[in-house]
């Protein structure tokens, strides 16, 4: 709760500089969290405890139906948990807030508004329309869509739309970016560019990243640490430190991280890998 107002109002301190020591990301704690959907027969999530440090990039991975997306929605304040609580910087989450913004698989831009108006949405909702002009230009440069401000979003490609969604999410200088399989609808090439850019932007701005994915490579590329979830009921089965200093697919650190993740992933699914040379590079 300490560094909110000052940092929210600032304009990307340290953006052009390389990684600075500047820390402003949210610290996320999930304590004793259990969730059951109405009319469901079993818990979607069972006794989840985790802590994500300020500025850290955490991945939550697991097969479909393991509750990873539900967990992210609860962290975002979009779903209320049955038991337990989530705190961000010590504050209990009860509602969604522009301080921790979620990005979805579909960019869901407003088709009746221009690129610039879509990016300025959060500013408008929070009574900061006056900042929109300079802020939007800055954000569009950041996502490399500087010349697209007045375009109709329906004319943009899927990757460009997701970049607009990223700029929209960053407009209010969030302390955490919560990503729900945000790139899975993109083609391979666009996806890897976006993965690298989001990771870079988050690191340079000091934003805490929580990434939900079923893509091992994405977790290895983008996260410092991965939580591996198992289903029925959804729970955290394992935790793997990834720390790929340089997120290049070819780097030795990457392969090591990838191997560790695959092992943990298969372990959570109740299997062991017989042949480690299985091709996971999609």
């Amino acid at each position: 709760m300490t560094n909110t107002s000052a940092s929210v109002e600032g304009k990307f301190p340290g953006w052009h500089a390389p990684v600075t020591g500047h820390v402003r990301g949210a610290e996320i704690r999930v304590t004793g969290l259990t969730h059951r959907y109405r009319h469901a027969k079993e818990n979607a999530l069972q006794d989840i405890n985790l802590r994500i440090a300020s500025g850290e990039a955490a991945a939550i991975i697991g097969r479909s139906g393991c509750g990873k997306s539900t967990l992210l929605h609860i962290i975002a304040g979009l779903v209320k948990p049955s038991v337990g609580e989530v705190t961000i910087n010590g504050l209990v989450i009860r509602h969604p807030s522009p301080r921790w913004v979620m990005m979805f698989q579909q960019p869901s831009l407003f088709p009746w508004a221009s690129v610039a108006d879509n990016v300025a949405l959060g500013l408008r909702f929070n009574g900061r329309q006056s900042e929109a002009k300079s802020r939007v230009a800055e954000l569009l440069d950041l996502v490399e869509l500087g010349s697209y401000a007045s375009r109709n979003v329906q004319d943009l490609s899927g990757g460009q739309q997701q970049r607009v969604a990223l700029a929209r999410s960053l407009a209010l200088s969030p302390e955490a970016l919560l990503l729900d399989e945000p790139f899975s609808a993109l083609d391979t090439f666009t996806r890897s560019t976006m993965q690298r850019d989001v990771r870079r932007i988050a690191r340079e701005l000091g934003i805490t990243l929580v990434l939900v994915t079923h893509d091992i490579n994405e977790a290895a590329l983008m996260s410092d640490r991965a939580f591996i979830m198992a289903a029925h009921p959804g729970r955290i089965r394992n935790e793997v430190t990834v720390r790929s200093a340089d997120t290049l697919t070819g780097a030795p650190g990457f392969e090591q991280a990838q191997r560790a993740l695959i092992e943990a992933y298969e372990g959570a699914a109740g299997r062991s890998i017989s042949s480690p040379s299985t091709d996971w590079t999609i």
Partner: protein
Amino acid sequence: MKAQPSPESHIVNSGSEDSAARLHSDADPHGRLFTLGLTLAGIAGLLLLWWIGGELIARNPATASFSDFAPLPALKRLAAMFASSEVIHMTGPSLLRIAAGLLWAIVIGVPAGILIGRSRIARELTNVPFQFLRMISPLAWMPVAVLAFATWDRAIIFLVGVAAVWPILFSTAAGVRRIDPAWLKVARNLGANPRQLLTSVIFPAISQDILTGIRLALGVAWIVLVPAEYLGVKSGLGYAINDARDTLEYDRLAATVLVIGMIGFTLDLALQKLIQRLSWLRHD
């Protein structure tokens, strides 16, 4: 990896696309001329039918006194009515009644439509009563309207409103139900309050549905207006029709019918153009 198309198939594809494009660009100006030609032919056909009808009426001794219905006297009279601004005098009150009736229908229909689109309880509660009421001809309310309202004008506005409210209400509700829930989730996540959800998401998303509802409502209201104006009032197009019948001025009657058609057509076209201009949806 998807299978690469063979080079041959690629050539065949691009070839056919090229020729299709060429055909299209060649055909386009002709197509527009063709459309214009057909439109004019349609109008000419209608005039021809009218003329034949007029001739038949004139030649039959039993109906000869109605021969002023024919195009020539009617169009002459129409020109005179335009020149004497009689057209403005008789349409002005009608347009005001339509505007007032539509306004009431919008004020009631849009919020009710949003509520029904958003709330399952409201939807299921109102479904049967509304579908039932919708099927009652607004003119059936005429005696009730006459009893309930102090002036003839208000009774007519009520009847127009009753006719117009249903298309607006149902079109709005259908638009609300088609709103992508992700838009609302995104807006909530960015800190939108309920009022901002309404003004920044719901209204822009359903603007076209509301306008389409208004366009349909206008069509129904315009049809209901003329018989409603047979009631008591001494102004408006419906009154003009009745008056012309009573004074046996069949050329004026036919000319008034033309005015009703032209104004209705123009209003509908204007709304159609407005909808096209405000549309955010890409149809390609």
